[in-house]
Structure formats: C-alpha cells, structure tokens
C-alpha cells in the first residue's frame, strides 16, 4: 500500500471511498458539483477523522522571481548588507525574522526555517527547474517536479479531485510544472487566467447519460488500441480520460464564493490571499499537492519597497492559511512550504535593489512532519556564504518527502535505471523534522 494513499483497498477504506463518492453524488442534483457542502462532511463524519490522520497534503507557496532572505527569514540588521528593516523576535526562542513578517513571527512554532540553501544557480530558468525538481537537469531523464512526485506518492488512483493543482496568475516567470517521466496522469491542473478551471463543464448540449456513454465508448476503443501494445504514453492517456468526471466535479472547489464571507474576509482581498483560500479548500477536499505561485519578487530596483508590499501579502496570507488549516485539524497533515528559484544578493545596488543570489538563502516548512520553531543552518554575518549546515536543493526535497512520510531514497525504475525520489546523495535535514 502506498503509505500516503487515501484508499488503500481495505474494507474500511472502501466504505470511506463509497461514502466520499456518495457525498459528492448527493450534491449533484443535475450538476457534477462536488461542492464544499458535501466535502465539508470530511469535517464531521467519523471516517473523516481517520482520513485526516492518514492523509498528507502539500501547499507550496512558490515565491516566483526570488524573494529576499534578508527581508524574510534571515535578517541581518545593522550589517552593511542588512537593509533598513529590523529583526523581530518570533514565538520560537532565539529565532528572529524580518519585521516585515510580524504575523509569521507570532506563528513560528508551526514553522521551521532552513537558512543555508546553496543551490548554485542564479538564473531564473535554471534555478526554477532546480527548485521544482530538486536536481539539476539531466539530458537523459525528464524528471518530474515536486508536485508530480507528491501527486504520485500521495494521490489515489480513483481520485475524485485533481492530484496536482498549480495556480500561477502573473505572467512573468510563469511555469506550468512538469510530471516528467511520470506521465500526463500526474501533470498539474494548471490555472493561469482564472481561478476557476476553464473548460471542465459538461457542454449543455450533451446530457449526462450521453457523456457517460461517450466515455464508455472511448474507453472500449482505447482498450482495443492498447491490446498488444506496451506504452506508458497510452496508459497515461487512458488514465487521464478515466479521471475526467472527477475533475469535472471539482469546479466548485475553486469557487471561494462558497466560503462564508467572514472566512473570505480573513484571507483578505489580494489575489494571493484568495488563492491561498482555494488551496485550503483543495487540500481539505483531498488534493494532495497545490502550488500557489506568488509573482514577482525579482526586485533589481527598489527591493525594500517591493518587499514592503509583497511580504505584507505573504505574511498575512500565509498566517491566515496556517491558522485556518490548524482550526480544521488539517495542519498536522498538511505541509506548507515557501521558496522560489533563489534568494537575493547581500549587496544593495544603486537602485536600492537586490539581484539574483543562490549561494546562501532560505526556505520555510510549516505543519506536517515539521519541528515547529526550528531554525537550521547559518549564514555568515553579512549573508554572503553559508557558514553552517549547507543544504542543496536535493536535501530540501529529501526533507520535504521525509516530512510527508515518503522515503526520499525510494526508487522509481526508468527503463533499467533506478531513479531515487530525491537526488543522489541528498539527505533529509533531521533538525527541522518532527
């Protein structure tokens, strides 16, 4: 059994599965909507408690463009590189973060910081690829990104919801994500223009019965085509079609109007805040991996003004998200991550900006499997280099997977080649794990 699997095939879980699907079906009444009225049964039914105990989810807050570690998790007040902002004490003794993150400072007991990433790639494209997949590109292998890995390891075969949802609304640096050699089955449902998936509704000109019949016909033809053929592509293609009705039913999960006004007000009016609320709705409904990209932190000019804006957005949205997950009993099963492709330079340029920097920067992990309040690694007094506990992208990935209960050294077999989930030689950072 997949350790993170929602439905392992046991009798008990089979009941749960039927219960879940029934709950979704109850709400159809002429539509496919698995809306939150039904999915909120997760909060009330006995089987939901069991689900919550075993399910692991991930929300990646992707800080696209590269947020400054100085203005977030690794402040250096009073140093020539430190900028104008103070460091403030957090709820974790001895750990200080930037004054631009006061709400997260008060919630540091849910969060661990890694301050010693040295990922060596300060290019947007290369850095993004590295931090999405946890390893450098290999011409011979198309690696899946973290979302696809988690979709495979945490998702379930017959999921009624998407396994991997990626929201990236800004256009700068937009990247769709990749399922690599895992195939289209684990590719993200990618939302860029709207916060609700496009083209998932059944055409009004087709009845539900017609739709099911067409799917059955397609399935029959696909199976015939697949006879005597061994192709991952065919299998992946078929899998994708088999999940169509579930994906169609997920539309309302993206509709925050389904939430009470007070809840929407908590998350606030910014798009990022609203997307964090969508992320919570998705993980609550069973989506294993949600990526919310907040672009664009690439503050070559006016770094402090940019971070004054964007950190306020991040601090508020992340704090509310953690509170909400905690209130719903989901935080211990949900890992919330923040990082992007790299950090920013210690040097402050003439436009009062900071440039790309991958030699000594920070990431955060909150919730599931995390030792809250921990702070791992250290940079030198001016933040130019890692002084203690250097960590690679692979180490970060190994840590994330371990926090989720997934063996980072587990191997996929690609042809005859074993491919570990996290990069060769990577090690989880035990100091930030619960």
């Amino acid at each position, binding site marked *: 059994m997949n350790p993170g699997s929602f439905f392992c095939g046991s009798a008990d879980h089979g009941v749960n599965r039927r219960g879940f699907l029934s709950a979704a079906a109850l709400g159809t009444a002429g539509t496919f909507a698995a809306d939150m009225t039904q999915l909120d049964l997760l909060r009330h039914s006995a089987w939901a408690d069991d689900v919550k105990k075993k399910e692991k989810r991930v929300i990646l807050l992707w800080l696209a463009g590269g947020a400054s570690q100085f203005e977030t998790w690794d402040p250096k007040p009073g140093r020539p590189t430190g900028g104008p902002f103070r460091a403030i004490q957090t709820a974790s003794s001895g750990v200080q973060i930037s004054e631009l993150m006061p709400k997260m400072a008060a919630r540091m007991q849910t969060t661990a910081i890694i301050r010693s990433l040295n990922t060596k790639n300060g290019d947007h494209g290369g850095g993004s690829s590295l931090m999405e997949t946890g390893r450098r590109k290999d011409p011979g292998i198309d690696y899946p990104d973290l979302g696809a890995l988690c979709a495979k390891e945490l998702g379930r075969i017959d999921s009624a919801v998407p396994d991997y949802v990626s929201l990236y609304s*800004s256009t700068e640096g937009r990247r769709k994500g990749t399922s690599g050699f895992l195939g289209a089955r684990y590719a993200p449902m990618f939302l860029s223009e709207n916060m609700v998936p496009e083209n998932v509704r059944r055409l009004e000109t087709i009845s539900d019965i017609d739709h099911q019949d067409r799917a059955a016909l397609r399935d029959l033809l696909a199976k015939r085509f697949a006879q005597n053929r061994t192709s991952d592509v065919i299998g992946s293609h078929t899998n994708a079609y088999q999940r169509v009705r579930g994906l169609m039913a997920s539309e309302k999960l993206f509709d925050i109007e389904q939430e009470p006004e007070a809840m929407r007000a908590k998350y606030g009016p910014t798009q990022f805040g609203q997307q964090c609320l969508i992320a919570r709705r998705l993980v609550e409904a069973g989506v294993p991996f949600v990526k919310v990209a907040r672009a664009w932190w*690439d503050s070559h000019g006016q770094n402090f003004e940019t971070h*004054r804006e964007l950190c306020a957005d991040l601090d508020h949205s992340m704090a509310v998200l953690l509170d909400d997950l905690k209130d719903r009993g989901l935080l211990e099963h949900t890992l919330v991550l923040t990082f992007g492709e790299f950090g920013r330079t210690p040097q402050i340029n003439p436009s009062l900006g900071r440039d790309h920097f991958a030699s000594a920067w920070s990431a955060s992990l909150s919730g599931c499997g995390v030792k809250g309040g921990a702070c791992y690694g250290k940079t030198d007094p001016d933040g130019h280099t890692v002084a203690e506990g250097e960590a690679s992208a692979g180490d970060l990935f190994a840590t994330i997977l371990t926090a989720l209960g997934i063996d980072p050294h587990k191997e996929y077999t690609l042809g005859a080649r074993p491919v570990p989930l996290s990069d060769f030689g990577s090690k989880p950072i035990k100091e930030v794990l619960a």
Partner: protein
Amino acid sequence: MTTSDPTKLKMTKEFGLPTIAFCVARVPNSGRLIFGSSDFKLYEFDALAEKPQPVAFNGEGHQSYVTGVVLCAPNIAVSGSYDGKLIWWDLEKREPIRTVSAHELWIRRLAVSPDGKTIASVSDDMQCKLWNAETGEMLRQFSDHKPMTPHDFPSMLYAVTFSPDGKFVATGDKVGHVAIWETNSGAKVATVEAPTLYTWDPRQRRHSIGGIRSLAFSPDSKLLAVGGTGQIGNIDHLEASARTEIFDWQAGQRVKEIVNDKFKGLVEHHVFDPSGQWIVSSGGDNGGFVSFHNVETGKTLHQDKAPMHVHQFALNEACDTLFAVGHHKIAIFEFKAEAAKPAEAAPATSTN
C-alpha cells in the same frame, strides 16, 4: 541675485563612501555637510576641505537607515530614520541632545520651515507631524493619505516640503496623491494628483513601483513641483524616464510636465532657483543625473550624469554649487556664471 548658469554645469569633485547617503543638510556659508547614512549613523563631511573625511556623530543614534536631516538652529541638526525616531544633535559636539519616538513606522523624509522653527516629518504610518524645533514638542499631525493602495498593499508617505513663505506644507505619497496644508492651523487647503508617478502592474508582476519622491514649492509659493518616475513597463527596474510635474496647486491644475529625455529613474529631489525661472532635479536609476529645466517651457537647460544615484542634494547660498549625496558617493557640481563674483546671494527656496 544669483551667480549661476545651469549651462555651465560640471562636476568638480567626487568622494567615495563606504555607505549609502540618503539625506543631506549643509551648514550655512560653508561646505560642511551633515548626511544620514545606511549604517544608521549621521556624519559630518567638509566637502571643501583639502582632504575631506566623513566624521561620525557619537552617542546613541538611530537603529536603521537615516533618511532625513535638517538644520534648525545654528548648532542643531535633527535626523529622522526608519526606526521611527527623531534625534536632535549638537553639531559641534556631534552628540545627541534629544530623542523622540515620532512615528510608528519608517520615517521617509524631514523638512524644516524657512524660519527654522518647525520641523515636518513623514512616515509610512501615513502621518505628517509638525514639531517644535526648539523643544521637540509635537505641534500637530495630519494625514490625507490612505494606508493602503487601491490594490490593497501598504502605501508609503515619501515626501514633504514647506513653502518658502512657511505658510504651507505639502505631503506626497506612493499613489501620487499630494495634500497641501496650512502650517499654523493644520487645515488641508488643497490636493493635487499625479497618478502617472505610480505604476501598478496588475498582470505581469502584480505589485507596484514609483511614488512621489520629491516636492518643492516655487519661490512665490504658487507652484508645486512633484517628482518621481513615469509609468514603468518592467517594474523590476527603474526603467522609466525621470519625471516632474508642476502644478498651480491652488487651481488644482497641472501646468507643466517634464519628462527627462535622457535620464531614467526617480527624481529624488528638486529645487526651484530663487528667481523661479528654472528647476534643478536629481536622482537616478542605477546611475544618477543632475538636470536643469526651464519652468515656463519645461525645456531642458542642461543636464549631466552624476557618478551615483543621488538621494538628496544641498545648494549653496549663491545657488551655483550643488552638493549631492547618494549611493556610496558624495559629488560636488558647480554651475557658476562666467565672471561670477563672490556672492551675497539669496538662499535657495528649498533644500528639503
């Protein structure tokens, strides 16, 4: 009478600094500059000395970038900082006299009234506060600036200046809103809008840049110059032309729009000449500039690059020498008319 000729602009001296200088005030009739720095300190620097060296002030100072400094009495300087504090300093001893917790958030700029009796401070708490320069007592506070931008992000209150007659104070914020206040009553008497100075990118990068970084009244107090940068395409950089808009503020009308045809970035500071015929502006992006423009026509009289992004400058009494401070440098520019005589000149209208 001035002895200046903007067409004669040339940089005469340049000094390196280990830090970024954000603000400057000049001791009258001297080359003694008092500047605030990124190392949280206040320095004195005699720019006309043979081998000038920055000399740090002593005692308990600021805890963040020093972003405003004014002289309000023969021997008193007042500095403001991102730490929210105002500190009164004895210039001769270079020691603090008084520290006041002035604002809840970062102080962006200070200005001093022409009579030296009142100091104005502006901060990201969006308040403008007036202070008795002698006692440190707060006289009044006012704000017409919203704490959040229309796009739900924190706003900033960057700029403040007094009118040359001391009757009015102007304040300018991130989204291009300017309020003009009566100094004595604190009553708001006018507003003007310069929204072009604020760029909101709703799609590519989803944040903003810009804002009003400089304000200056004309010598007759009738015009108000508002400085910053224009609409930016790629807000990762200060890539739009430096921009000044001049308003007949009592009529609420923009009368001139000066878009720098050579230099990009922010207008960080500008000052009208005593005759009101030209305005000098300075600032920059990764580089810097000093530009002179005719107020009536808006045409460029002369301009040249500065060796650094300029954050502020001070003019001498004759209004023919400009002491600029900025990114790791101090530079002196002269623009003296041929045959200029040692001057008994009127003071510049604003060195805020």
